């Protein structure tokens, strides 16, 4: 077996879950029968092989055993049955800032944290600069980390975990902290890992993240392996699994819609001036959004929000209107939003549509990527937006009339 490979053969892990959070010795002695634990199989009969250089995403609903499986790989738990072989040094970001001492400086914490991953002092010495550099902490590195922000803390933890020359890097979604620039750096670092032939195992709820970083994805369901293969297929199946799920947080993470459900948006379509549904436009063309609002309970007139976002999901602009202003009578209605001339020049865009109550405090229904479309440029303009105006030449305060 080479460093960086993982072989799991029929790995299972069960836990005894006690009815109370912590068992006390008193309870254990005095009332034994109240302490009947429930057996929970967190991982059931998982068999897989991961070769060095692979990056594998683990997906699944909350409680599907993803994190337990990563902890098994990290050696924190041992399998209850089955065989698990993990070869090489393991770097892990499963718990935020593990082993950091708040009163120690960033630098001291690097030594502490790296030694937990198994590095000797001289090995840390050699990597110290790289770790500090990557964390972008600069002069803060010599301040106690209790003075750090959550983002700084995270950056340091990520920097240590990915700089210990691990053959296998285990990541729980925790690293989705920090600003966008740092996140991009993290992704780059992870992709570098792959290139150097290291192994990555990564737990995520986010389809795009898995698609971007993994060339293989495993879908777990109630501890068992449901699918192992193409990320896109795993994501599709995962979303199918989620479809019946009511937990809003989970839906938000994995699915495109959520909300309290008193009213729903449906049939979102984009049309051109001719009334035909389209997904390609030319800059400056008329652009119409049509959708239906379906009330499911008696509610005050809601507000309708249409967000225009770029392909990466950044908000570009938002249009908003109270349906009461439009004379809504409380029944199912069709809404039209017309843009006379599309102010976009080029790119791929998406619309998110949401229905909220008048005060914006309740979100009845929210649909991400309700529609997607591309815009092609016209003439010489480039970029995102139409940026047009009248040009003129002035001389001595007077506009020079161009000769026809």
């Amino acid at each position, binding site marked *: 077996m080479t460093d960086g490979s993982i072989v799991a053969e029929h790995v299972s892990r069960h836990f005894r879950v006690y009815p109370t959070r912590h068992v006390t010795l008193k309870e254990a002695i005095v009332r034994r029968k109240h302490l009947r634990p429930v057996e929970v199989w967190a991982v059931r009969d998982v068999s897989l092989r991961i070769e060095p250089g692979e990056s594998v995403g683990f997906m699944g609903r909350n409680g599907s055993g993803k994190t337990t499986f990563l902890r098994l790989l990290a050696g924190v738990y041992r399998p209850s049955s089955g065989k698990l072989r993990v070869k090489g040094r393991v770097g892990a970001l*499963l*718990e935020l800032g593990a082993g950091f001492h708040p009163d120690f400086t960033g630098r001291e914490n690097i030594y502490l944290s790296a030694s937990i991953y198994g590095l000797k002092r001289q090995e840390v010495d050699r990597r110290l600069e790289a770790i500090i550099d990557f964390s972008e902490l600069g002069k803060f590195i010599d301040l106690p980390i209790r003075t750090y922000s959550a983002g700084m803390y995270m950056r340091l933890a990520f920097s240590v975990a990915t700089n210990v020359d691990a053959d296998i890097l285990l990541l729980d979604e925790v690293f989705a902290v920090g600003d966008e620039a740092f996140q991009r750096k993290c992704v780059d670092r992870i992709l570098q890992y792959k290139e150097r032939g290291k192994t990555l195992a990564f737990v995520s709820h986010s389809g795009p993240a898995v698609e971007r970083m993994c060339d293989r994805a495993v879908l777990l369901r109630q501890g068992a392996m449901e699918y192992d293969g193409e990320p896109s297929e795993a994501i599709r199946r995962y979303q199918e699994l989620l479809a019946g799920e009511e937990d809003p947080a989970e839906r938000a993470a994995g699915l495109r819609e959520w909300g309290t459900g008193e009213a729903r948006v449906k049939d979102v379509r984009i049309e051109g001036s001719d009334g035909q549904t389209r997904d390609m436009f030319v800059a400056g063309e008329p652009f119409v959004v049509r959708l239906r609002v379906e009330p499911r309970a008696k509610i005050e007139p809601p507000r309708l929000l249409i967000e225009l976002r770029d392909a990466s999901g950044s908000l570009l602009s938002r249009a908003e209107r109270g349906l009461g202003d439009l004379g809504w009578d409380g029944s199912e209605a069709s809404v039209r939003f017309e843009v006379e001339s599309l102010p976009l020049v080029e790119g791929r865009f998406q619309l998110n549509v949401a229905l909220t109550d008048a005060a914006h405090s309740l979100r009845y229904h929210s649909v991400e990527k309700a529609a997607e479309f591309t815009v092609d440029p016209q003439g010489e303009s480039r970029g995102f937006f139409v940026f047009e105006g009248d040009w003129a030449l002035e001389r001595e305060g007077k506009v020079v009339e161009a000769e026809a």
Partner: protein
Amino acid sequence: MNLYADVVRYPDLFMNIFRRELHGKYRGSILGLFWTLINPLALMAVYTFVFSILLEAFDVEHYPLFILSGLVTWFFFQSAVQMACSSLFGQPSLVKQVRFPRHLLPLAVVATNVVTLGAMLAVVVAVNLIFIPETRSTFWAAFPLLVPLVALASGLAVVFSYVAVVYRDVEHLLLTIFLPWFFLTPVFYNFDRVPGLNDRPGLTSILYWGNFVSPFVRSIRDPLFYGRWPRFVDVIYMILVGAAALAVGVLVARRMDDQVATHL
């Protein structure tokens, strides 16, 4: 016994954890070390006042030094075991991150207490050498006896740190036990000077041999305070108790290792 050898096998890791614990204990200052000496000195003062002055119960020359020479042992033992208790369950994020020799956590706590022990001993030895000349030839004999003492504390530290992860009330239980245990240990008295034990050799033996800390307190005090050599039988007893504690520590750690991760 590999468990204890890990201290030497992972010197950098152990030193880092040790420094971290030390920092937590002394707040990163020499003054911090000083503060930890205040507690035993205060105990010494109050016991001298109550038992020697108010009750006139003990007519021992240099009574404060007598107490202090016993407190060294007891204080180290109690605070090492008590503090080690939370060393695992107090760090769930560390224990659940990646596999590493977890038992180094309680052992590092013991090591920080060895530092306090050293400081206390330095004070006690210095003062005793000045006021009790007959200790000048024997005081060094106390030092080798610290080996079984540290072994005893290490073994129990590992045991209680592991057990406390599963049974959280063990920490409080220990607090409750330590107080009566202290009074049953001959720290501020001596069994041969207790009127109630005068013609009860059976009870004396039970109290002495049944409480495994007693021979430690006595044997370490003998060369430190009385200028006497420790008794051979006590030394054998201490070695056996120390070894037994280490062995129980290994057994418990091995049995409970997996439970530790899952209970956090």
